[in-house]
């Protein structure tokens, strides 16, 4: 049934590509002239610096929190402002900076201390701050490019850093490119166990997680209207892959009243190694001057037994010369991890017999499907939305180039649903 949906989606896309769009010839000539001008102009003038202020509000609710063993509230709200700055350093190199803070309240995180006074309100609060920097350089002689990046994030129980780089080989006609990239991530955890399991026992042997990623992507211009990108990644993780405050209840809880569950909880145990292999494809088609087609498909498999398919489609539509509306739809389906058990499903006998060493009741790792539907709006007048002089800076004008809005509703087959809205204010200076 799920595969049928994906095949139906692929068939619709195939049909769309075969449609020959009706296009005004003058419009094509104008665009080609503009494009030629852009090519000439880019050789002579250094581009403006750009800055984006992004703001996101996210909320979700569900009833399968892993903090309380696979049942219990997952209510959460998150507000996340982010700044993204792009600064050209010279005609061939630039710097990207990205920094932001997540402010969130989580009912389930608050339930880490569930058995201490039975707290159930949505009062668990925290902030996470993060920063990332990337240096990008075009190699003028070869036409290739490379990028180096590093970043850091911190919150109450996890600090992380990462660094990596990429190298892109472009064909002379710029119709093909091959990119190789690598990333190293390190997370250090404060091991915060469920309240009733804090008896001095080291339930988990590691407090660090390392992630290494190697990626390969290939982009290809297929014709004047169609281009594609293929990507493959190998991601290796090791160390602490369990979340220390996730609870699991074995089958000995059957018939036990909720008030007495504290004596029956276990700390989530997951394999300390995981290998992930996602393979994805993007295919974008310029249907006509009114509508473009953006598509995405990903196949995923990992060493924990999860296999997944994800497909999405987006149709950006030019409503007016300044306004683009982009409805989108995404479908995802995955099998469960080998170690997933519902509340009260795994037995001590299974663990003792080494039938399973690992167990989790985290529904993010369960057999599930999800749909996401939403709309994006982009308002970008030719001369910008407005100009203003920034305080404390003389002889400088900032232009608000465009405003973007995107909202989406997410529905997961186990009953979890989420809603989010994001804003993007793009400036040049």
């Amino acid at each position, binding site marked *: 049934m799920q595969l049928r949906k994906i095949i139906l989606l692929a068939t619709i896309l195939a049909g769309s590509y075969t449609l020959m769009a009706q296009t005004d010839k003058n419009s094509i000539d104008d665009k080609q002239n503009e494009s030629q001008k852009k090519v000439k102009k880019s050789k002579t003038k250094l581009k403006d610096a750009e800055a984006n202020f992004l703001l996101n509000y996210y909320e979700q609710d569900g009833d399968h929190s892993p903090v309380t063993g696979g049942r219990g509230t997952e209510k959460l709200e998150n507000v996340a402002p982010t700044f993204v700055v792009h600064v050209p350093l010279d005609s061939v190199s630039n710097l990207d900076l990205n920094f932001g803070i997540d402010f969130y309240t989580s009912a389930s995180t608050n339930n880490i201390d569930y058995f201490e006074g039975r707290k159930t309100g949505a009062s668990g609060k925290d902030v996470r701050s993060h920063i990332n920097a990337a240096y990008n350089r075009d190699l003028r002689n070869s036409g290739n490019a490379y990028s180096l990046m590093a970043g850091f994030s911190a919150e109450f129980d996890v600090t992380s850093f990462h660094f990596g780089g990429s190298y892109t080989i472009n064909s002379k006609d710029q119709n093909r490119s091959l990119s190789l990239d690598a990333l190293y991530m390190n997370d250090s955890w404060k091991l915060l166990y469920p309240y009733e399991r804090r008896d001095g026992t080291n339930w988990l042997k590691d407090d660090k*997680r390392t992630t290494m*990623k190697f*990626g390969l992507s290939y982009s290809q211009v297929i014709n004047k209207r169609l281009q594609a990108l293929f990507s493959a990644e190998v991601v290796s993780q090791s160390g602490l892959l369990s979340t220390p405050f996730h609870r699991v209840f074995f089958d000995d809880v059957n018939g036990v009243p909720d008030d007495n569950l504290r004596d029956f909880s276990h700390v989530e145990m997951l394999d300390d190694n995981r290998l992930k292999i996602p393979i994805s494809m993007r295919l974008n088609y310029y249907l006509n001057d009114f509508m473009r087609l953006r598509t995405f498909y990903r196949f995923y498999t990992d060493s924990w037994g999860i296999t997944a398919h994800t497909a999405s489609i987006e149709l950006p539509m030019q409503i007016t010369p300044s306004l683009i509306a982009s409805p989108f739809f995404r479908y995802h389906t995955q099998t469960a991890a080998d170690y997933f058990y519902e509340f009260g499903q795994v037995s001590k006998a299974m663990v003792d017999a080494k039938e399973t060493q690992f167990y989790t009741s985290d529904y993010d790792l369960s057999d599930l499907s999800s749909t996401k539907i939403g709309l994006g709006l982009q308002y970008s007048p030719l001369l910008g939305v407005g100009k203003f002089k920034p305080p404390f800076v003389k002889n400088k004008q900032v232009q608000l180039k465009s405003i973007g809005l995107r909202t989406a509703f997410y529905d997961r087959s186990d009953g979890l649903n989420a809603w989010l809205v994001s804003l993007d204010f793009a400036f040049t200076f």
Partner: protein
Amino acid sequence: MRDKNKTKLLLASLGLLFGLNSCVSVAAYQKAYLNDEAMALRAKKLESYESNFQSYREGAAGANGGKSGGGCGCN
């Protein structure tokens, strides 16, 4: 076994999709359509928030570090 067949079928469908369109050499001045902002072969900036929560709410994700907090990370 059924899953393998499904995957092959899906990959074959996508292969066919590509087979319908042979590649041609497109000069820089002919890339007006391809240079359109909506044609970029990357996720939009605003999509980063969605990629983030999806990487937590779905066990199948790319190179995210896994459950490490960040708004909706661990609950």
